[in-house]
């Protein structure tokens, strides 16, 4: 069964990708979407089997892969509780995104290609989460990277999409180098790349040291740090995050599937999969906490000022991933996986909702040109409200809460309970929760409430005047003109005579299903994921579940438990005050702190910095080595250098040109024959 779950999407991708032109749009879409729903239908019984305790972890071998000396690894599919969680997340969101794309991509000329890429992505992601050894995990890791590259650059005519696609791939490769070195080091230390064998050998390696780059370091610390660098790249953590916002160049269903629900959580998955190893490396865990908390804070600050609806959600994703990492860092792997699980539903919902808004607003993505959409697209509005309630963590202790209420609060409580580092993370996380609430409600208020401000949007003007874009989905223009207008005042209000329409059913059904997830996923599954007893039974050793920490998390002081709710309300209030009650307030705030605003708007200047220290020097050195090294030095003093060589060249050239090439070859042969004869005469 697991084999079918994993390979059906691959089969569908191959058929739709290679046969798409021949078979047409609808069969390609039916095959891929059908395959995904089939995979999804087979995944849930596995998950439920683990919830009930009917299933135990097992490995299904597929094919031998590489044997080289004492290094051996195979293709195989591992199924345990951790995999089961990822299986339902991946197949469910992917199936819904496939369905959603029927509506969203309806006008695109190359739909089979799009669906083939989506299915290919799903296959690679499933290979990643079912990996029984680090190399197969790396296969999935790079495979999702390839799919992400192809899908970000799906509209390949656009330079911005191409640049974003390459950036995503190359930045991920930086992380992947860390991952690869981690695999190498693990093999050198443990003599295997099989995950269960590594984890079994971890206790024996504690306290040992290893040489690395001329230093002597604690073995497990350096291995965990190297592997974590890989996780930082894939999960867009501080320093290697720059690709994620740009990845929004891809079609919105892609953002929902890859850059919110599944691929970017691969880093969290990896840390959880290797959690017994990380548990034995406290320094590395400290680093994980630090990076997680820092990302959680920094991404949230940027999210507060972005005007592109997808970029707000992208930074929100980045920030939520930070929560998952510091949860893992404090040892609450169950809580990290729980947040991964609930986040997949509500973040996919928010992205698909945003896609529905973009669809309704004729591909305008700038929230400054939205406003008042509540009455026009009520279904989208209410589903996005559910998503916002879930991400901001609304709920009443002991009664009921939306998904994020259980997972995010659990993370904060576990962090507080875990010790001094965790308490630092708790305060950072609580502040980020305030920002989360603010930017999430800001998005809702700017989009759905207030007066319509559509008149100034170029996209809307195009729509009203009937001149269609040459391309069905043209998402970059919004970004381009948002820079030129940047905060010169409130945009013109008015509808310009445009009438937004609610999206087709294919898009609304996934929204409805995800809404169910965003509302109930926390309440229903909290026992299995994070309860001290229930969690230990459910995870059954597939992660280093710390029942003691979970107990302690339930017994934190009341103010700790109430803090998330308080900051959530505060964020809501600030957003309401600035965007509903007094819409002129944000401009005044910006006027008072222009430098800080610029700093946030420019995303802490990471892109500028990297351009300055990596991109430009690479090009400069490339030209230097080429012109100054190869041509200016090696050739100049080498083949072109000495006078005899030059004259030799001209003689040679003359001969060749005048047809003496045969005689030249003959001379060479003669010379060889002479040498051989001489050699034999001398030594025989």
């Amino acid at each position, binding site marked *: 069964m697991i084999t079918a779950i994993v390979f059906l999407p691959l089969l569908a991708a191959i058929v739709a990708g290679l046969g798409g*032109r021949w078979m047409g749009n609808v069969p390609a879409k039916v095959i891929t979407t059908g395959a995904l729903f089939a995979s999804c239908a087979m995944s849930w019984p596995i998950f439920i089997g683990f919830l009930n305790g009917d299933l135990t972890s097992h490995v299904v071998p597929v094919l*031998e*892969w*590489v*044997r*080289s*000396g004492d*290094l051996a690894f195979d293709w195989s599919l591992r199924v345990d509780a951790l995999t089961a969680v990822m299986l339902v997340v991946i197949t469910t969101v992917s199936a819904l995104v496939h369905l959603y794309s029927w509506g969203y991509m309806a006008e695109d000329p190359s739909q089979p290609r799009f669906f083939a890429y989506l299915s290919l992505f799903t296959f690679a992601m499933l290979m990643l989460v079912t990996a029984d050894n680090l*190399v197969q995990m*790396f*296969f999935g890791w*790079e*495979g999702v990277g*390839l799919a992400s590259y192809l899908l970000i*650059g799906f509209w*390949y*005519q656009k*330079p911005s999409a191409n640049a974003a696609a*390459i950036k995503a*791939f*190359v930045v991920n*490769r930086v992380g992947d*180098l860390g991952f690869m*070195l981690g695999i*190498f*080091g693990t093999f050198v230390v443990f003599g295997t790349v099989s995950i*269960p064998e590594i*984890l079994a050998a971890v*206790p*024996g390696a504690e*306290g*040992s*040291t*290893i*040489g690395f*780059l*001329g230093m002597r370091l604690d*073995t497990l610390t350096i291995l965990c740090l190297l592997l974590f660098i890989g996780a930082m790249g894939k999960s867009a953590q501080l320093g290697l995050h720059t690709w994620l916002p740009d990845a929004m160049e891809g079609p919105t269903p892609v953002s929902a599937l890859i850059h919110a629900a599944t691929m970017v959580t691969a880093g969290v998955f990896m840390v959880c999969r290797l959690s*017994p190893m990380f*548990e034995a490396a406290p320094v590395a865990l400290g680093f994980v906490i630090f990076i997680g908390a820092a990302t959680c804070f920094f991404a949230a600050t940027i999210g507060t000022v972005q005007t592109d609806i997808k970029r707000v959600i992208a930074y929100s994703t980045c920030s939520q991933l930070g929560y998952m990492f510091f949860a893992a860092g404090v040892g609450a792997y169950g809580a990290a996986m729980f947040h991964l699980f609930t986040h997949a539903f509500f973040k996919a919902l928010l992205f698909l909702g945003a896609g529905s808004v973009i669809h309704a607003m004729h591909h305008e993505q700038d929230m400054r040109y939205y406003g008042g959409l509540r009455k026009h697209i009520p279904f989208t509005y209410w589903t996005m409200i559910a998503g916002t309630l879930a991400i901001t963590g609304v709920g009443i202790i002991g009664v009921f809460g939306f998904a994020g209420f259980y997972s995010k609060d659990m993370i904060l409580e576990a962090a507080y309970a875990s010790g001094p580092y965790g308490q630092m993370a708790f305060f950072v996380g609580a502040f980020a929760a305030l920002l989360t609430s603010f930017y999430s409600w800001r998005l809702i208020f700017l989009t759905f409430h207030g007066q319509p401000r559509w008149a100034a949007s170029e996209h809307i003007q195009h729509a009203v005047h009937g001149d269609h874009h040459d391309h069905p989905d043209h998402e970059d223009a919004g970004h381009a003109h948002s820079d030129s207008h940047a905060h010169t005042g409130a945009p013109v209000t008015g509808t310009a005579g445009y009438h937004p329409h609610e999206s087709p059913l294919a898009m609304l059904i996934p929204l409805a299903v995800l809404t169910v997830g965003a509302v109930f996923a926390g309440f229903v599954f909290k026992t299995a994921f994070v309860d001290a007893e229930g969690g*230990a039974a459910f995870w059954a*050793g*597939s992660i280093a579940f710390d029942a003691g920490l979970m107990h302690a998390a339930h017994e934190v002081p009341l103010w700790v438990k109430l803090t998330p709710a308080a900051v959530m309300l505060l964020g809501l209030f600030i957003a309401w005050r600035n965007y509903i009650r007094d819409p002129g307030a944000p401009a005044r705030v910006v006027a008072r702190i222009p430098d800080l605003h610029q700093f946030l708007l420019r995303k802490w200047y990471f892109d500028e910095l990297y351009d300055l220290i990596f991109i430009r020097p*690479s*090009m400069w050195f*490339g*030209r230097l*080595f*080429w012109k100054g090294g*190869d041509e200016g030095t090696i050739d100049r003093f*080498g083949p072109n250098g000495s006078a005899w*060589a030059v004259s*030799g*060249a001209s003689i040679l050239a003359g001969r060749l040109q005048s047809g003496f*090439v045969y005689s030249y*070859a003959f001379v060479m042969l003669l010379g*060889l024959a002479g040498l*051989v004869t001489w050699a034999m005469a001398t*030594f*025989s």
Partner: protein
Amino acid sequence: MNQLGFPILSLMIVLPVVAAVVCLYISANAARWTALLTTLVNFGLGCLLWATFEIGGPQWQFTERVQVLGWFHWALGIDGMALMLIMLSVFLMPICIGASWRSITDRVGLYMACFLVMLALMIGVFAAQDLILFYIFFEAGLIPMYLIIGIWGGANRIYASYKFFLYTLLGSLLMLVAMIWMIGTTNTADIPTLMQTDFPVQAQTWLWLAFFASFAVKMPMWPVHTWLPDAHVQAPTAGSVILAGVLLKMGGYGFLRFSLPMFPDASAQLMWLVFGLSMIAVVYTSLVALVQSDMKKLIAYSSVAHMAIVTAGLFAFNQQGIEGALIVMLSHGLVSGALFLCVGIIYDRLHTREIARYGGLSNNMPAFALLFLLFTMASIGLPGTSGFVGELLSLIGVYRMSSWVALICGTGIILGAGYMLWLYWRIAFGEAAGDDTRAMPDLDKREWALLAPIAAVVLWMGVYPEPFLAPMRKDVTALVARLAPAAPEGDAQLAAGSPRVPAANSPAHGGESPQ
């Protein structure tokens, strides 16, 4: 004699030579068909060789030995490493003939003869068991390549062929001197015997350096690589394919057959020279590749970077490093060959190698774009393709010796992704540079037939490399054993510590359930 009962290796060498002579005297079309049939027959013989090669059997198989004069023998025989490189040669050759089918119209008979002679010489290099015989095959390979570049090359072909010739011949003269010294000392030219001979340590260093002069140029290693971009740019498509696909592998083969087993002590002493040059090459040539505006130059520079991974892997002195290096050699032979074919296919349509003149080929050439994407991904070592298996194994091997070298060589995977994806963008994505670019037709049947087999093997080697690794395993093990006394310690050096007692309150820690 051997398991087949007839001298298959001699047959594989003589057959193309005979066909080459025939080609000189028949019409252009007949020459094309003769060349194609001969190379296909040779490929068939190669498959027979692979199928009947006894894995785990004697080290040298299909041996033939006829005394010519004194100690000079017509001695042929292959081990697993030579077998795989012969397979690479006979696999690529029909594709080269096919690639030249229409683009070569001038002196076709001579052209086909050059390729057939080259095929014979390549098989000879990998099968020779006599030092002098090896030298003849190794150096004579220059001549047809020299002619191919010099006669059918681009506008600046004279300079390129001169540079190619000068570099490679100067290196090999030193090698010849070393060979003569070796024969004089041991009184034998038998390569298997010499591989077991322990030369004095001081002599090893000089001999090693002399061989290195030749192999480093063939490889090519930095800083003697500058002939390669020029040669590639000027060579016709099929010439580039053979140059990148097989000729560059002769340097690596030379290290495996001579430098490492014959001079293990010198190899260990001079390991850091190889590592140093390899590290420089990876970073340097990758950065140079980044700024190229000529497609062929870009791929040529990327070849230098890939070959640096090979040299680093070979000198890692362990099983993974050497097996990885061999797989990179095979993979690079296929992938860079395929990339040059891709370049040739679009060059045939637009007659320019300027990257800026292309763009948007995904629109009008979707099949081409798909295959080009596959080879691009294989070139940057995406898992599931042959490039990954090779790079992973060789870098693991390197890491066991030195984490520094693994890190620096590993930056190649980042830079490689940068320049290859940027190239792909400028060719296949974006907007077409002009109406002529937009009007280019997609692959025809002949071009499909050239690229599809390579694509299949690239994926096969990436997903299930065992058939490729299995014949070489025993030889690599023997080589590693031969090197073991001289091999230095790696820098990882795990030092055991005192394991912490597992905490009592966390029973789940480390409690991974068994498979």
